[in-house]
């Protein structure tokens, strides 16, 4: 896969889908995200993001999860289509 498909969750656009490629965080953060089903390989869709560095909402496993901006910035997504 070409490298340019990788993008942080914060920079992904609303409505776009992709797969979690990597979580660049400490163990605590990875554990908390994993508990909510956010693990590498999982398909997600971005539902919204608040302005002013607000949280990002995504859909994962038919459930929705809101992730603070800082944390969302460390989640790397492989986009479905090359744009």
């Amino acid at each position, binding site marked *: 896969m070409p490298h340019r498909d990788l993008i942080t969750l914060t920079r992904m656009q*609303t409505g776009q889908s992709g797969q979690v490629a990597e979580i660049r965080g400490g163990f*605590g953060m990875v*554990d*908390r*995200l*994993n*508990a*909510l*089903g956010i*693990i590498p390989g999982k398909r997600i869709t971005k*539902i*919204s*993001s*608040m*302005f*002013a*560095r*607000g*949280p990002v*909402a995504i859909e994962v*496993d*038919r*459930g*929705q*999860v*809101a*992730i*603070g*901006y*800082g*944390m969302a910035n460390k989640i790397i997504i492989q986009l479905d289509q090359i744009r």
Partner: protein
Amino acid sequence: MRKILLVGNPNVGKSVLFSRLTGVHATASNYPGTTISYTQGFLKLGEEKVEVIDVPGTYTLEPTSEAEEIALQMLDTGDIVIDVVNATNMERSLYLTLQLLEKGTPVIVALNLWDDTKHRGIDIDLDKLREFLGVPVIPTVAVSGEGIKDLVEHIPKATSPDAPVRTRDERWATIGSIIDQVQHIEHRHHTWLERLQDASVKPLPGGMIAVVVLICAFLVIRFIGESLIGYVLDPLFNNLWAPVVIWLSNLMGGSGFLHDIVVGTVAGGEVNFVESFGLLTSGLYVPFAMVLPYIISFYLVLGLLEDVGYLPRLAVLMDTVMHWLGLHGYAIIPTLLGLGCNVPAVLATRILESKRERFIASTLVAIAVPCAALQAMIFGLVGERGGQYVAIVYGTLFVVWVILGIILNHAVKGFSPELLIEIPPYRLPPWRIVLQKLWMRVYGFLAEAIPIILGAIVVINMLYSLRVFDAIASFTAPVVTGLLGLPKEAVTSLIIGFLRKDVALGMLAPLALTAKQLVVASVVLAMFFPCIATFVVLLRELGVVYLLKSAGVMILAALVTGGMLNLIL
């Protein structure tokens, strides 16, 4: 006695299931994290009586929060685990299930929210799932009771299937293959509820929805509260109860110490229920006719917002603002609870991760979030002088909340963790559940408030007749009169505010304050010091040192704000 544990992710219906099994009502809310202290009850299994425990929601047995830590500890004490699985999101629930199976405690799975699977086009092959897991799997609908009997009958058949201990990756892989073979999803179009769901976390439509929801909430609370007072409780007190009071007053000779405690001051054959300060007059009128109507209307609306699942969305929308205050969006939930009563609000700050956040959130609640009892009195007494004065009180408290939060955020060391929450789907809650919760909360108010209110009235009468208040009033006059511009007798109200804020505000009624003085007094009363019940939970939750810091902030903030209002208005 054998112990049965209800274990599962947050918000999958454990608490509703618990009350189905035991008849004990645990609070159910459509947002994660409400069951932090656990609830226990009992269930008859044939001849045997067993204990049932509603364990705090957890996603994993590798704890990532305090609540999960507690859940893990409790797990070791159980004989049987009822694993409550969300049938509409098995992917997320099964991780915990696999971990539970590895532990070796007998497990039975309640596949709850079964009713929701049909709407969502989810088809689950139960027999295959049973085969994979090796334990009984019973579909249930906790809110309607469907499947509960089946579940109880199968509890003795709970088994421990000797599952191999897996690594994290292996568990996820196992879940993947279970889901592939057990679950079939039919693609459907989004329902209007789902569209509304997405819209309410988007900045623009979400913001508009929030404004509409909050305005409607306010109007409905006002409408129900006022109607109950105007059409039910005032007529009851004025037409039925007042004659009884007059009759009793005459019987007791119309004056004297005992008369004043029981009936209060009755001038010229007229009862002034607010100002007379007897046990049978203000002692009943304040809690039942002034506060109770607003308790009912507030908790009805809050309960609806909770059970529909709106509050986590508000948390998402408010996240940025809450970060200015050193908190994250989820702190909006304790804050809203504080508008009902500060006690559960302070307890709910446990959903926040760090001590720092809990300190900031509970201090802000104790200072700037007036409880429903106090608000009811503000509406009753300040509202009489004009809506603009009520608006000034609320506006001031809101500004204090923001400014103080910003100050605390800079002054208290540490940082604010990030928001990370599951946003539950919107659900139309059954009325039975909503009303049951409302009743629990109203009953809780009556049971806690009435004894303290009656006690406060006795204390007030005694202090008056011993002239203690006069002595204190002269002593504190420089602050109360000089700084706040209030008559020196107003200090009595501030002191009684330590017992009950509603009674305290009522004590201002006979003082003939100007509207401006009433505004200053209400704000200072709201901020000055928490009532004793809040004080006790603050002590328990924060410890002495933080409580003292918190109290210091309160007194300072109250005096500064009151003094400024006195100057500006």
